[in-house]
C-alpha cells in the first residue's frame, strides 16, 4: 500500500522534519500500516520534495531585522543537531528534561517525550521502525501500568532500562541488551543535556530566529506556488513534482488493489487540493489527511484554480463539495498552531480532529510529526474507517 507524504512550505533539505524523514517513515510503517491491516514492510512511503522549487531570496533575506543568523546551530554533527531539536522540543512544549519527575506525574506523556527525543536522533529507517515498535510496547505497558512501582526509585540513568525491560515482550532470553535501549538512553541523555540549553534561552533564540525566517519563507513559498502553479496542460514545477508521485502511488495502489493514503502537512494540503480539483481530478485517493493545513483558509480567500465566488452560493451556510475522487478526508489541527485551520465549515464531507502537540504558538506547526503519539492517533482514526 502506498502513502504519499506532501510537505508544506518552509521545507528545505536540512530542515527539521526533512532530516527526520526516515524517522517519520519508520513510524508510518510500524504504527500506521498495521492499523490499516497491512504488513509494515509492504508499505511504500513516497515523499515528493518540492522545496527546491520554492522561494529564493535574492539578498538572502537581508531584509530581516535580525538576519545575522537565520538559524542558530548547536553543532555540525548529527548528534548535535538531534540535541538541538530536542532542546527546541523542550522549549516549545514547556517541559524540562527531568524525565523521571515527569513520568511520576504523567507516565504516558513522559514516554511520548522520551521517544520523541530518541526519534530526533534516528539515523536509519530501521532504527526508527525499531523505536516505533518499542514505543507501541511502552504505550501498551503504560496503559496497563499507569504508575508502576519501579518509578518510585527510578533514576535518569536507569529509567530507559527499566521501561524497556518492563515493557518488552520477547519469546527468547538474550544474554545482553538489544540496540533499541541505546537509542532510548540517548533520548534520555539528550533530554538531560538539552534542558539547560532550553532554559538558558539558547533554544528560545533559535526559535525566535527561526520564527522570523520561517514566516518570511512561508509567505514566499505560497506566493511562488500561486504565481507559478501553471495549468493542467502545463503544470508548474511544484505541482509537477507532487503530481508525479501521486500518479506513481496511484498506479501502485491500482496494481496491488490496496488503498492510497495521502498525508499533506501545512501548505501541502493546498497543493493536493488544487491537484484533486483542477490539475488531475481523476486520481482516486482513499484517504487524505491534512495536518496543520490551511486548505479552508485558502478557499475562503478563493485562491484555488477552481475557486469561484459563486460556489457555494450561500456561505457561511453552504460549503464547497469534497473532490469526487476523494473517499475520505481527515483534517488535523492544533489550537496552539497558529497556522492550522478547521475545514468542516468550508468543505462538506470532512472530519476535523484536534491534536494537542503540547507546543506553543508557532512552534506547534512543525510539532505534529515529532510526537510518536500523533502517529498512534492517526492510526486509530484511519482504522475507524
Amino acid at each position, binding site marked *: 500500500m502506498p502513502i504519499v507524504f506532501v510537505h508544506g512550505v518552509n521545507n528545505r533539505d536540512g530542515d527539521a522534519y526533512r532530516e527526520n524523514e526516515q524517522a517519520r517513515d519508520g513510524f508510518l510503517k510500524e504504527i500506521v500500516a498495521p492499523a490499516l491491516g497491512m504488513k509494515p514492510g509492504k508499505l511504500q512511503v513516497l515523499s515528493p520534495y518540492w522545496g527546491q522549487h520554492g522561494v529564493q531570496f535574492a539578498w538572502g533575506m537581508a531584509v530581516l531585522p535580525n538576519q545575522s543568523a537565520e538559524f542558530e546551530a548547536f553543532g555540525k554533527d548529527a548528534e548535535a543537531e538531534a540535541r538541538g531539536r530536542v532542546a527546541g522540543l523542550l522549549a516549545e512544549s514547556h517541559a524540562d528534561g527531568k524525565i523521571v519527575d515527569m513520568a511520576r506525574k504523567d507516565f504516558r506523556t513522559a514516554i511520548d517525550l522520551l521517544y520523541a527525543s530518541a526519534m530526533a536522533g534516528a539515523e536509519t529507517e530501521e532504527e526508527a521502525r525499531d523505536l516505533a515498535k518499542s514505543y507501541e510496547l511502552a504505550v501498551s505497558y503504560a496503559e496497563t501500568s499507569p504508575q508502576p512501582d519501579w518509578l518510585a*526509585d527510578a*533514576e535518569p*540513568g*536507569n529509567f*530507559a*532500562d*527499566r521501561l*524497556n*525491560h518492563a515493557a518488552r515482550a*520477547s*519469546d*527468547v*532470553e*538474550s*544474554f*545482553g*541488551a*538489544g*540496540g533499541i*535501549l*541505546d537509542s532510548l*538512553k*540517548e533520548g534520555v541523555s539528550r533530554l538531560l543535556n538539552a534542558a539547560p540549553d532550553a532554559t538558558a534561552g539558547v533554544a528560545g533564540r533559535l526559535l525566535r530566529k527561526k520564527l522570523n525566517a520561517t514566516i518570511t519563507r512561508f509567505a514566499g513559498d505560497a506566493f511562488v506556488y500561486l504565481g507559478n502553479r501553471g495549468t493542467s496542460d502545463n503544470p508548474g514545477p511544484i505541482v509537477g513534482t507532487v503530481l508525479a508521485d501521486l500518479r506513481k502511488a496511484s498506479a501502485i495502489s491500482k496494481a496491488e488493489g490496496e488503498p492510497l493514503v495521502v498525508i499533506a502537512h501545512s501548505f501541502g494540503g493546498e497543493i493536493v487540493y488544487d491537484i484533486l480539483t483542477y490539475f488531475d481530478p481523476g486520481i482516486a485517493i482513499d484517504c487524505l489527511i491534512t495536518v496543520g493545513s490551511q486548505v479552508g483558509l485558502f478557499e475562503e480567500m478563493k485562491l484555488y484554480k477552481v475557486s469561484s465566488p459563486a460556489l457555494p452560493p450561500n456561505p457561511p451556510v453552504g460549503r464547497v463539495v469534497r473532490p469526487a475522487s476523494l473517499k475520505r478526508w481527515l483534517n488535523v489541527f492544533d489550537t496552539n498552531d497558529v497556522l492550522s485551520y478547521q475545514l468542516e465549515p468550508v468543505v462538506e464531507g470532512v472530519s476535523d480532529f484536534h491534536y494537542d502537540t503540547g507546543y506553543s504558538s508557532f512552534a506547534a506547526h512543525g510539532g505534529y510529526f515529532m510526537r510518536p503519539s500523533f502517529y498512534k492517533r492517526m492510526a486509530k482514526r484511519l482504522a475507524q474507517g
Partner: protein
Amino acid sequence: MTLLLNTAAAGQPGTHVLAIGVGKYPHLLDGDKKLAKDPIGLGQLDSPPVSLKAFLDWMLAPAGDGTGFSNPAVPLASVEAVCSSKAPVTIDTPALGQVALEPATRDNIQVAFEAWLDRMKSHADNLGVFYFCGHGVMVADQHLLAEDFGRTAQPWAHAFNISLTIRAVEREVSGAVFFFIDSCRNVPRGLALTLGADPQALIGADLKKNVSCQHVTAVYATGEGQLAFAPIGGHVSRFTSALLRAVSGYCGIKSPGEPTWNVDGDSVAAAIRTLLQYNEPGKDRQVSDQSIQGPLVPLLRIGAPPKVMVRLDLAPKERRSLYELYLAKGANRVAQTLVDQEFKVDLPRGVYEVGALDPHGALPLIRHEDEDLVPPIYMLTLKSQP
C-alpha cells in the same frame, strides 16, 4: 570454588575444566538488591544455570559410552564450577554425590580461575576447558559479568575481560585450551562512551613471555556486536545446545591408522556454527564466532564415527505421502515410505545415494548420486517436478 572432580594423577596429563554460570544478578533489573546506577538493560537470566548443569552433566558422564567427555590420552582430571542462580544448583558427581555450587561472584570466579590455572600448569600436555554462560558485552574486548556486577559505584570491578584473559592464559600454560563463551557480544554505546569502564583480566598478560600453549580454540556464542539467545523459560541456551550436540557424536575426523575419531577445535567450531544456523531461521539469528590458534589438538577422542543428522524433505509437500524417501550406501539403505513428514534419521558420515521414488511408478524418480553426508547435519529438499 566448588571442585566436583579431582582425579589428577601425578605426572600424567589430564583435562581440567572450569565452568561458570551466572543467571542471578542481584544488582540488575528485577534483582533483589539495589539496582546498579546503569544496568545497561540487563536483567535476570533463567538459562545459564540450566545450561551450565547440562554442560557439567555431559562432562561428568562416564567416559566411553558416547554421551560424555572421552579422551583417553588426557582423561578428565578435574572439574571446578561456580554458579549463580535463583535456586541452588546441585550437580551429581561420580565421587562426591550431589554437590551444590558456590555463587559466581567476581571473587569466587577469580579464586576458581587461579586454582584451575595452577592445575593446568601441572603438566605440559594438560588440556583445559573454560566454559562461561551469562551476560556479556564488548567494546574493543569482550567482558563477562559476574553475579555482583553493579554492586558498587565501580560496576565493572565485578566483571572480567575474557579477551585479555585468553591472551594471558596462552602465555601461562603449555597444553591446549578450549574456551566456550556463551554470552552476548553487543556493544552498549553507554559503555563505549564511559572512561574507566575497563574490567580487569583474570590474570595479566605478560607480553615478555612468548605464547607457550600448544593450541587455543575460543568459540563464542555469537558474532561481534551480536546477541546470544536461549529459549524462554529456563532451557539450555542455543549455543550450549549446539555445543553439546556437536560433542555428542556429531563431529570429528578419523585419526589416520587408529580406531578413533578426533574432535578438535576446527571440527567442533564448524559443527556449532552449522547447528546454530540450522536451529535458527528467522529474526533472532545467532551465528557463532571462533578463534583457533596453533596445531590442532583433539578435545575428544571417540571410538565411533561421527553421525550425521539427516533431514530429507520433498517439495511440493502435497506429494510427500506419495513417495518413498531413501538414502543408500552400498547394501545399507534407509527409507521412509508414503509418510507426509520430513524424513529424520541419523547416519554415519559417508557418500550416499539420496532420492525419492514412487512405489507405484506413476511419479518421476528423483535421484542424487554421490551425496556427501558430512557431520553434523545434512539437509535436502527433493524437488518433484510436475
